[in-house]
Each structure stands twice: as C-alpha cells, then as structure tokens.
C-alpha cells in the first residue's frame, strides 16, 4: 500500500513534468488545477491576459484524457448557448425537436472571462456546476463525469463586467492566481514559442476511471482532529477579525479547506494530512471567500496578505 502512495506521487510528478513541457513556469497553477480535479470541485482562475491560463487547462485535459470545451464570456451570451437547446430537425419527412448539447457537456469546461457574461448566464452555469445536470424545457440531462469548470476572470478592465456575487463565487473551491513568470521562465517561453511550433506529443497519463478512483481516495484520506480544529480556527478567525475583514468565510470554506488539504497530502504521496497542507491550501480556498473592509483596502492589503495574517 505504501508503494501505491509512492506510485501515486510518481504519477503526479509525471503529469507535472509533461505539463511543464508545454506550460513554462506556473507550477503552482498546474498543481492547484490538478488538486481541484482530485477534489471533484471547480476553480476560479484570475490573472492578467497572456499568462497561459487557457493553455494550462487544455494541457491538463490532454494529460488526463478528458473532453475539453471552452466558452468565451460576453454580455450577449445566453444560457442556452452554454447548456444547449432544442433544434428543429427533419427526419423522414417528419419534423421533430432534437436536443443539441451545448459546450457544457464536456469533462473540463473553461469559461473565459466569466465576469463578462450576464448574471443570468452565470447562474445557468453555476446551477449546472452544483446539480451536475442541465434542465432544458421539461427534460433533464445529466452531465458527464468527471465534470470540472474552470472560470477565468481578468482583474483589470472592470468596466462593463458583472462580478460574481459572493454566494456564487463561494461555490468554487479554489481561486487560483496566476502570476507573471520570472525572467528566466519568460526567456524560455520566448525561445520555445517564437521558433517553429512543435507538437509536444502529450500522451494521457491518467484515464477517467483512474481519476474517479483518485477522487474517491481523496475523501478517504484520514485527518486528525487537531488538523480539523486548526482548519476551523482559521475560518473562524476570518469571521471574527473585524479589523481587516468585513465578511468572513462560510462553513463551506472549512469543508473545502480540509478536502483540499487531503488532496494535497495525496498529491505529495502521503496518507495523512499535516498543518502544512492546510496552510498551503488556505490561500486558494479563502481568498475569494473573504471581503476586505475599508481599513484593509486603505492600507493596500490584498486578500493573501490578510490570510497570511490569519495564519500567524
């Protein structure tokens, strides 16, 4: 069994290694996307344009042998553009309605610039995420398994956008931040992508069935009561700290924190969770679940700064 966990760790190393051939740098982004998949949860991806957000998701879907689709958020995007709609089809001289599946019928859905879509469309997507099914008319269609939504948003150009309400952003397990690459990484990016584009020949490392098994294993990872208390304390602190935080995280954050810590432990080839797992996962789990107050904004504190303060 010990070998199984070591083998699992080796599999993740292989995935990261293969992904690194295509995505240079952004190791933490790739890791957090895999962790979100392991938790069978969805993630928000925030970063400036051109930071390989789409490429990262596409690469992961290839390595995990998952069906990938991409939706571009625009103000005129309708819910039926995502879920699909009935189209009139003529067969043997007879006209009948046939359901035409939308891009949501996929394993990995990348929703680019979710904050540009209208609240109505956002709600349709979030409902699908929650229920894992789509209802059109009077018929319900179950979504494929595994189902993973990765919604991106741009921190700049906020004009004409519809920021996600807190109740909806709470449904995403992670908010993954993409940072600019280092000078060395950017040099490699330029070298790799300014020359003749080559096919990296990515081969699937994990199958859908293996991923499902992995998701099952994550929930089975045992957690010590002290670790659970530690995670709950962090979330409670976010609610009690009125100096910097206006609204703290919900109990869903506590669940998410423990689940993410379990996935992180498994990712590192361990069958138990440590406080380091919780601390590491506190940033992506909490940063979209806390709302800073005026005092924090006046001092130019980011959500991550406040989380660091909570972890002290």
């Amino acid at each position: 069994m010990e070998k199984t966990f070591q083998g699992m760790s080796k599999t993740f190393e292989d995935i990261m290694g293969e992904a690194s051939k295509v995505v240079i740098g952004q190791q933490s982004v790739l890791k957090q996307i895999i962790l979100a998949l392991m938790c069978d949860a969805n993630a928000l991806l925030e970063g400036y344009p051109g930071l390989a957000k789409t490429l990262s998701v596409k690469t992961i879907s290839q390595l995990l042998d998952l069906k990938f689709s991409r939706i571009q958020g625009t103000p005129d995007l309708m819910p039926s553009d995502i879920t699909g709609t009935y189209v009139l089809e003529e067969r043997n001289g007879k006209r009948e309605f046939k359901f035409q599946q939308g891009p949501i019928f996929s394993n990995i859905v990348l929703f680019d610039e979710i904050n540009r879509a209208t609240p109505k469309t956002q709600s349709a997507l979030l409902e699908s995420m929650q229920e894992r099914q789509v209802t059109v008319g009077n018929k319900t269609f179950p979504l494929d398994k595994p189902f993973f939504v990765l919604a991106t948003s741009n921190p700049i150009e906020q004009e004409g956008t519809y920021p996600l309400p807190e109740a909806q952003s709470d449904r995403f397990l992670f908010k993954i931040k993409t940072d600019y690459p280092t000078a060395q990484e950017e040099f490699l990016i330029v070298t790799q992508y300014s020359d003749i584009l080559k096919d990296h020949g990515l081969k699937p490392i994990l199958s859908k069935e293996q991923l499902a098994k992995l998701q099952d294993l994550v929930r089975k990872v045992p957690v010590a009561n002290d670790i659970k208390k530690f995670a709950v304390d962090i979330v409670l602190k976010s609610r009690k700290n009125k100096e910097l935080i206006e609204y703290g995280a919900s109990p869903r954050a506590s669940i998410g924190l423990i689940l993410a810590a379990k996935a992180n432990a498994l990712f590192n080839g361990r069958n138990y969770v440590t406080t380091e797992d919780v601390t590491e996962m506190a940033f992506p789990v909490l940063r979209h679940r806390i709302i800073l107050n005026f005092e924090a904004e006046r001092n130019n504190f980011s959500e991550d700064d406040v989380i660091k303060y909570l972890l002290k």
Partner: protein
Amino acid sequence: MSSVHKALKDIRKTLILSKLYNSFLNGLVVFVIFALFFIIVRTYWWLALIPFFIYMVYGIYNAFMKSRYSEIEEKVPDLKWQLRTMADNAHQDNEVVQSLKHNVLQKLQHVGSSHFYDNKKTVYKIGAVFCASFFIILIGILNVEFVEFTHVNPGGISEKLTQLGDSITGKIAFEGLFDGGNERDIYGAESVAELGNEELELKITQDNSKIDISDINDIQNPRFNKQGQIQDIGAAGGLAYENEKKLDSDEAELIKDYFGVITNTINTEE
C-alpha cells in the same frame, strides 16, 4: 482488542511512565533545593516536602490527564501527525486508513523507551540533587551558620516559615518525628544555657486531683462574704510526688514500732 488499539495503549503507557519518572526526578530537585534553602534560613527543613508534594501532584495530574499523542510525536518526529491521525481514525476501515495503520505500526516497532528518557537531562538533574545533598550534609556536619539571615531576609521570611512550621507541628503533633522544632522550647536559647555532658532526668507524674466537668450544678443558697464575692466558689490544687525510694528495713521497723515504743515508755514511767 485490535493490534492498533493495543499499540496505542502501550505507547501511551510508556509516555505516562516516563512523565511520572521525570516528575519524581524534578520533584526531588525541588525538594533538595528547598531543603537547602530552609536550612540556610534556619527553619524547618521538612517544609521542603510541601513544594515537593505540590510538584508531585501536578506531575501525576499532568501524566494521567494531559498525556497526548502529540507529545509522543514530538519525541519521535518520524511519527509526526501520523499517530494522532491513526488514533482519531482507528474506527475507520478503508484502504488509505489501513495503509496508515500499517505504516504507523511498523514505525512503532522501532520506538523504544530510550525515545522518552533524556539521559542528558537526567544526568543534570541527578547532579543537581547530588550537589544540593552534599551542601546539606556539609552544613549539618560542620554546623555551618551563614550570615544572620534576619538581617537580609525580606519581610522576615525566616520567622514566617518558622511560624508556619510551628503551626503544622502543633496541629499534626508529630512527636519525636520533628524533634528539631521543639528543642528551643525545651532547652531554651543555646546562647543562654548550656547543658554540657550532664544528663538531666525529669519525671512528671500525673496530677492526683480529679475534676468531673460533667457534674455541674447551680449553687444552692449562695453565701456572700463582705466583699460581695460568693464564698462557696474557690479552687484548690495540689501535687503529689511519688517517692519511689524504699526505706531501709531498720528505719521501717523503727517507724513501725515508734508509737509502740513511746506507749511502752510512758507506761513504764507511770
């Protein structure tokens, strides 16, 4: 009982024993240090038993009530978070928990008593006990008297401790056990009186007067003296000394025949 529960029980027992051992050793250090201090301030040395017992009670409470698996993990870093996780999830049965149990049980096989006893600290503590004991013996043998402590002790701590000791001996009445405290009452101040090598034998016999305190009645027809005091109330006491010295037979004979001889002499004269 499963092997996991047995292993957890055994390791906790080892931790408790090690904590009791450490508590006793620490208590001993506390005792000799306090005893040395009390001897220096010229008060009852056995007052050092109070901090010793307080420390031991705390140590025993700590050992039995506050022994956590996290303490074992601190001593065996290889088990960090694993032991606690296994203990909290011992009732679960799935492949991940099973693998954790297997790993922890394997690691526990390599955990010995040596993980719980810090030899370096033990040597230091025994060294401290030895040094303090040496000073106590030295002070006792050489009858060393330090600077008059009453001049330097703040708030008359020496006197307060002595009073505390007096009250304890008075209450518990440890006759013979804590003789040192009563010496001053019996012999007086050493600077005033000196007994030398002579032995003094004192025997105090029981008072022969008896008072029945249960037999209490009101005074019937009280009589008053000129000063207006009740005449019937008074007190009388007496001491009887038992003379164990036996009379010589000649003297006893003389006393016995004394009145007979006098009577005969009178009759003869008549």
